[in-house]
């Protein structure tokens, strides 16, 4: 019983220490400012909405903050090797659009819209390769842990459709999920030392 009490004290102490250091860290330095450039690359699973299939992508983004809330963002997706029984054989997407963020200290919730292009090839007819317009809607959360790093989790809906497949529904809408480590860099000198703000 005594040992358990000691253990509990230690655990509570550790948690309090972490919370206090975390909070004080958050109060002193805020990295979400105009001029912040962010980028990341990660592995993303995707659920197809018109088929019972899951695809895997290498995904990445590059983003620049115009104001504390708004940024311009570019995204790219590359489909990893798929089984021949699946609908998609190849898919590469690129988007550019805007994003709105709600910063809470160094934590940011965001949502955005971006038009783009998608190159697709289906296992239904491998001779057919298409280049189609597409669009993405995304939402996510990010936590900036340091002036060069952040953690990110992103949900994304993409609309894309193949039009040249004969008597086959070419809808290729997907929900893409990605989690990972991102890199960030403050491009504007006046925001590089957040403590001074």
């Amino acid at each position, binding site marked *: 019983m005594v040992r358990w009490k000691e253990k509990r004290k230690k655990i509570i102490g550790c948690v309090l220490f972490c919370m206090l250091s975390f909070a004080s860290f958050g109060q002193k330095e805020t990295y979400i400012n105009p001029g912040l450039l962010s980028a990341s690359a990660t592995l993303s699973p995707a659920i197809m909405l018109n088929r019972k299939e899951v695809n895997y992508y290498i995904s990445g983004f*590059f983003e620049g903050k115009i104001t504390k809330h708004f940024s311009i963002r570019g995204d790219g997706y590359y489909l990893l090797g798929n089984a021949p029984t699946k609908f998609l054989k190849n898919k590469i997407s690129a988007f*550019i659009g*805007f994003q709105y963020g709600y910063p809470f200290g160094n934590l940011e919730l965001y949502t955005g*819209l971006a*038009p783009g292009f998608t190159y697709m090839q289906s296992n239904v007819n491998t001779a057919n390769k298409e280049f189609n317009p597409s*669009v993405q809607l995304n939402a996510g959360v990010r936590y900036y842990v340091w002036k060069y790093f952040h953690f990110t989790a992103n949900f994304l809906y993409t609309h894309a*459709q193949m*039009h040249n497949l004969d008597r086959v529904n*070419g809808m290729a809408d997907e929900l893409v999920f990605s989690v990972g480590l991102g890199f960030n860099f403050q491009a*504007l000198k006046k925001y590089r030392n957040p403590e001074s703000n």
Partner: protein
Amino acid sequence: MRYFAVIAFCWLTAFGSHAQPLNIKKNQGGLFSLGVRSTSSFFGDVNSFGFGGQMRLQFADRLNTEWFADFTRGNIQHRANRTDYHIGWSVMYYLTKKLAPAVKPYILAGHCFDRTVIVDNSNKSHQIVKNSSAIQAGAGVHFNLTERLDITLIAQYMFHLGKDVHAHIHDDGELDLSMHKGTGIEGHLLLNVGINYKIADLWYGGKKKERK
């Protein structure tokens, strides 16, 4: 790699220009901006979806011009596909003189050239191509996020002049592509949502020289 470097350079240049305030001469004439947009077409033979880009050059406080190019694709019952290319321009008349209010509505009218290609999915050589001209009119609204950055919604009706192309699927399943000659009018509603960034006031440089 070369393209990536060019895109990265443009991105950083546009981004760098944000750090500077948007300097304008006496009025808003000369404001130059660039943007991208998603386009959806409704009420035509085929509902289609596409991507486009535009540049704007403003001539007066209330008068702006938009020069655009769109690429849309649509599906005809999974038997054929339709691709449309639009390149054209519109004159925009603002209902307010303010530079960047939160909401800036306008009306527009313009002209464009277009190319339509309909292809049979079962036989790619079975296709029909039409080049024509169109006029468009409608209304739009800028949602100004900052002085330089806006999101724009546009609804416009586009009338295509000249020849008209159609895909008919007969009861026996046969696909027939046809072109109706003459001076027919084919129309469809275009809905655009886009993002636009004001690069600079092109007339501003001249003013600086005058001052010197």
